[in-house]
């Protein structure tokens, strides 16, 4: 904490000597979606993100003594609004949090021109992990390919031959987000010898998946892996219960692990699993600070119930990653009010070690990880969470992705992207 205090003192001194400097703050916009079709899943995440910065501002006066101006710009998950928000905020912003895959796709090619880092924690384009090619994009702590790899590892129990001859259905949103893990799953299916059954769910069919589940009932896959979001998750889970698919063979990505979606089916959803790089820890020390600085003064719009869920604590973790990036940049550059370029350096040097997590009072809420110049993801690994009828509980030890299988694909796809978007500057200064 000492350097931070020094920084704070320096910042105060600077402010005093400079005389009439307007209130210094770091502008951190978030392209939120509290309206529209995905609002129910968006709100707890947005609240978690916002509340963490509210807490930091109230407790420590921001980061390094500089207040964080965490502003939301509402997109309603619409790409068009997202671009509007990006244009509106990019002047002052040190970072962009695009949220939807569509908006990420839109913003990603502009990053080399606008030079503003994109932070997409746990979503976006998986090859963004290649920091050499995607200098300005970050998807810490885990990419979708990591997620797919971890699910397969969990299913096979680490034995490469365990899945041979099995049939695995991949139920996904027919949208860039849902299609993201397909190249990796296909590669693994060929290698591990299981049959991959692709079952897309169109955006219009999210709430009525009877056709897809009829197919699942007919094909009888050993496992169903789901890449769903918003209304699709609740639709799939209720449909699975209706068709009596064994819930313990049903695994979702981290976005398909929303407590409220499972609460609809309650007991009958017991056994459903979701791979997750974050989990709620009820006795974590951070809750006391949130209670004292955010909930008690009435600065949050979240409910008691919501704060217990998986998504709210994931929102907290996302803000922790960003806050650590800001702190790292402040320390490196010796300035309080960092700019976008310095923010980029900060996000490349996030080090959430066990010790640091304990210091933050967040032990167990996210696996420890560190980013670097060439690795913009950190590949934290994850836990398998299981619905026990009333809440998600941890059901496995810490699982790590099979990086050896992912890396070649990542490098190839990143190079492909760079070629398609030439001229695309690559950060040669990065070692491996």
């Amino acid at each position, binding site marked *: 904490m000492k350097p931070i205090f020094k920084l704070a003192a320096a910042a105060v001194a600077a402010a005093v000597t400079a005389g009439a400097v307007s209130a210094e703050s770091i502008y951190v916009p978030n392209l939120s979606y509290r309206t529209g079709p995905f609002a129910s899943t968006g709100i707890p995440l947005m609240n978690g993100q916002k509340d963490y910065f509210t807490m930091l501002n109230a407790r420590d006066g921001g980061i390094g003594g500089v207040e964080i101006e965490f502003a939301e710009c509402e997109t309603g998950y619409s790409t068009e609004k997202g671009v509007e928000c990006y244009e509106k905020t990019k002047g002052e912003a040190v970072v962009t949090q695009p949220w939807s895959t569509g908006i990420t*796709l839109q913003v990603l090619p502009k990053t*080399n021109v606008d030079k503003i880092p994109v932070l997409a924690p746990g979503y976006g384009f998986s090859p963004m992990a290649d920091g050499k090619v995607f200098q300005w994009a970050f998807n810490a702590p885990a990419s979708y390919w990591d997620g797919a790899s971890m699910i397969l590892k969990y299913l096979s129990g680490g034995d490469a031959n365990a899945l041979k001859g099995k049939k695995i259905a991949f139920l996904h949103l027919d*949208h860039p987000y849902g299609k993201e893990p397909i190249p990796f799953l296909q590669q693994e299916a060929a290698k591990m010898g299981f049959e991959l059954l692709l079952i897309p769910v169109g955006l219009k069919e999210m709430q009525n998946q009877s056709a897809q589940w009829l197919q699942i009932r007919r094909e009888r896959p050993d496992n169903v892996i789901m890449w769903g979001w918003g209304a699709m998750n609740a639709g799939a889970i209720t449909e699975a219960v209706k068709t009596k698919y064994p819930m313990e063979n049903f695994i979702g990505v981290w976005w398909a692990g929303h407590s409220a979606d499972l609460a609809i089916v309650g007991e009958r959803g017991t056994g459903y699993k979701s791979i997750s790089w974050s989990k709620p820890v009820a006795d974590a020390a951070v809750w006391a600070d949130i209670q004292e600085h955010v909930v008690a003064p009435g600065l949050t719009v979240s409910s008691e119930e919501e704060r217990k869920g998986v998504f709210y604590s994931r929102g907290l973790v996302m803000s922790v990653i960003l806050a650590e990036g800001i702190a790292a940049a402040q320390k490196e550059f010796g300035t309080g009010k960092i700019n976008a370029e310095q923010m980029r350096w900060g996000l490349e040097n996030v080090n959430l070690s066990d010790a640091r997590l304990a210091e933050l009072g967040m032990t167990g809420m996210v696996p420890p990880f560190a980013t670097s110049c060439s690795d913009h993801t950190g590949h934290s690994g994850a836990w398998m969470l299981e619905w026990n009828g009333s809440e998600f509980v941890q059901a496995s030890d810490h699982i790590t992705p099979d990086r050896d299988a992912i890396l070649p694909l990542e490098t190839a796809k990143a190079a492909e992207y760079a070629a398609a978007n030439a001229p695309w500057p690559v950060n040669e200064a990065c070692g491996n």
Partner: protein
Amino acid sequence: MFFRTVGQFKTSYRKDQALFPVRQDAVLLWVILLFAWVVFPFTASEFTFQTLLIPILIYSLAAIGLNILTGYAGQLSLGTAAFMGVGAYACYKMITLMPWMNPIVAILLSGVFSAGIGVAFGIPSLRIKGFYLAIATLAAQFFLVWLFEKWAWLYNYNASGAIQVPNLKSMGVYVAGPQASSIVQYYVVLGVVTFLTIVVINLTRGNLGRTWKATRDMDIAADLIGVNLMKSKLTAFAVSSFIVGVAGALFVFMWRGAAEPNLFDIPLSFRILFIAIIGGLGSILGNYLGAILIVGLPVVLNTVPEALGLPISSATVEHLNIMIVGSLIVFFLIIEPHGLNQLWRLIREKLITWPFPH
């Protein structure tokens, strides 16, 4: 007073047939063109270009295309977005298959593809009319969006299923892709839109436009006086789809930069239909007014609370915005069911006789 037409004598047929026979109209047009071509580009910020100027122009063009079909030829269409998609994907394929091609040429050529598809889906209009035809165009909407999703060749087998605009140069300047500057893209869009608008105004005034209007007003009577209905309807589909296709290519290449298939789904069709209806069916000016109301106004409204320093959360602003724009649409349709174009026409009539209405 400002609009007095007294003393403006037409001494030749040519003058009488001019696009804007009243001098004030012509002056007004020149003022607008001066703003669009000179004043805006040099005063606008990046935000204004990307959220107001470029999208309003592109949406106006798409609405003009729809207006030819629905407003002038009377054939209701709910497939506008799908035809925009055809234009966008055609342009994408041309650019990626033939990288040497000038992007502006590719954009204009992509209209040809959507015109072809439009004519194919227009064939049912020879047999069915009104709501039944709307259902047939709805089929185009569903089918084409499904095709954009399933035909991987269209998006070059990209894993995400989306198309991404590469950096494209025309005459040494980046005109599309992330490297292109907003002002260049604005001029390209403005040039294409201006050119096509002039073409359309002339088309609708001429022989073709008259046969369209005759078909719209009463097709049996039109048939009886010798209008070839098949030709009239199919040319309407062709011209309309051409313009809509160009608008679609501009939409993706000059503005969005990337597109996934569901971008071209029904909500976009409805949005363009609303622009055409609120602007006024059977008008050209109305499309611009409608686009300003539906595309531009929400963006402007979004910035109001912040500019006034009101502490309203972004989500609330969004809700308020939807309510305000919605009630404005209702308001305008109540005071003038024929759209904003008619409203302007009435104001103009009043201005011509003002201050002595009798």
